[in-house]
């Protein structure tokens, strides 16, 4: 019985975290936008506008649920739930600290890739169910983009997995620090298994993995449908894209899914490339900085701070770069990122056989 309670409690805690994260991320997003555009952002509600997002969510919760007359009622109502749940399931396998993760499976990485692809189905459902030209166009654009950009994401993950030799996210994280069971080589020549810290992170295991991380980061930005890849919801041409008809709590769910996806892909990048819960400080002789800053609480702290840093970069990019045109978007994916990702995958294979043995 206790085990079942734990299985129920963990998702509730994660959901609470996502909701809290979304509240603060929306506030941060507005403040970042304000900073980039040389204005103040929300200032009226609470001190420095801190209560702005709470006021927003209260407003959304009170709103009436409006069903468009021509919409497919069932598909229209289920779609936001599917969009959110697809992202939410992804959280079940990501580690937060040493051996501290909801589910320790051998197929963790593959599992995330699979469940996140369900997101596309939810978006298509929303676009079709709304029975609205703009929604349908937005969702078709979203699918074309998500299906295309899944390939560079997958290829960059394969390039990294060829180096780590496991799909288990917990093991991937362990093998990037002082707790590692295998020997780690910084750029292939310097054994850092005892030193740990920033040198042991996967991104520095081989020189081409830096390129792979950049591809992963850009492609996941497109997977989240965030600017500069936000043509599915381009306000100037498509009103709101696939969520044009949504209001109230249903819109809140679509919004929650977008921010949950941002955090999930940032966290996935951190776990696979940037050391996961491992500390950035190395052991220097008698000063065992890496050993002192590894543990449950430290693990959660490092995961959170690294992930939030990446989310911050995502926001910075959103408010700095202009939107891509649809054909430029596809050109970037198929003619630039996929060939580079393929080359990196081949280099990973050679690296594993020639350098790491």
């Amino acid at each position: 019985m206790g085990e079942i309670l734990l299985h129920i409690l963990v998702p509730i805690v994660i959901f609470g975290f996502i909701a809290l994260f979304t509240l603060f991320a929306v506030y941060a997003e507005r403040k970042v936008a304000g900073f980039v555009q040389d204005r103040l952002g929300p200032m009226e509600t609470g001190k420095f506008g801190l209560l702005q997002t709470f006021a927003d969510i209260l407003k959304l919760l009170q709103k009436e649920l409006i069903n468009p007359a021509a919409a497919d009622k069932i598909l229209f109502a289920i779609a936001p739930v599917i969009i959110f749940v697809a992202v939410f399931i992804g959280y079940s396998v990501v580690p937060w600290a040493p051996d501290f993760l909801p589910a320790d499976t051998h197929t963790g990485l593959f599992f995330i890739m699979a469940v996140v692809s369900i997101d596309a189905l939810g978006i298509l459902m929303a676009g079709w169910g709304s029975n609205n030209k703009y929604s349908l166009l937005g969702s078709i654009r979203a699918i074309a983009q998500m299906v295309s950009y899944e390939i560079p994401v997958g290829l960059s993950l394969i390039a990294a997995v060829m180096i780590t030799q496991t799909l288990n996210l917990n093991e991937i994280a362990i093998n990037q620090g002082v707790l590692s069971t295998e020997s780690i080589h910084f750029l292939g020549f310097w054994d850092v298994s005892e030193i740990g810290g920033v040198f042991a992170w996967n991104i520095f295991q081989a020189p081409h993995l830096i390129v792979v991380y950049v591809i992963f980061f850009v492609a996941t930005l497109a997977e989240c449908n965030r600017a500069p890849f936000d043509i599915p919801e381009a306000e100037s041409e498509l009103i709101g894209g696939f969520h044009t008809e949504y209001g109230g709590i249903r819109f809140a769910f679509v919004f929650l899914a977008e921010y949950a996806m941002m955090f999930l892909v940032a966290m996935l990048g951190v776990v696979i490339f940037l050391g996961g819960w491992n500390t950035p400080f190395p052991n220097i002789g008698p000063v065992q900085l890496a050993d002192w800053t590894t543990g449950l609480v430290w693990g959660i702290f490092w995961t959170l701070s690294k992930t939030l840093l990446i989310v911050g970069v995502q926001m910075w990019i959103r408010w700095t770069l202009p939107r891509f045109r649809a054909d430029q978007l596809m050109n970037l994916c198929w003619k630039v990122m996929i060939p580079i990702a393929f080359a990196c995958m081949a280099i990973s294979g050679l690296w594993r056989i020639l350098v790491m043995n």
Partner: protein
Amino acid sequence: MNLEVFLFYAFAVLAIGSALLVVSLKNTARALFLFFITLFSMAGLFLFALADFVAITQIMVYVGGVLILMIFAFMLSNKELLADLQNISGSFISLPNWQSLLLALGFFAVILLGLKEWNNDMPDWMLSNIKSGDIISPNDNNIHQLGIKFMTQYVLPFEVISIFLLMALIGAAHLSRKEDTQ
């Protein structure tokens, strides 16, 4: 009833129920979206066979790829074609009713016969494997074994499949090419 048994039957009921609805619904769009539930609960059933890799591949390939393609094909096809499809939905793949009924009954009889022949005992090879400890447990890492098998015992089918996929890819790229304007 423990949780595993409950989940197994829940997935089984979902798979069969949604599959029945998929073939009986008049609304093609809803039927396609319902197909997702069938595929998803099939993936759940694969998990009970300790085939977690197959389960995830099922979601990845069918839900992320094939189903999206089917919905796209549905959205891009014209209304007259869809109306035709809905007119023939009274018969089973354009067979008359009595023939399809005969087929269904025959198939059901085969299943019943199989159930009758099965006497609740495991086959001998299964018993001998259990005795010698040559089994996989839920916590085993199957992926290493899968990879080794793919690259040794099943390397020819594996390579044939990859050539086949490459052919499909080249074909798709060729079909979607711009025609030469003369």
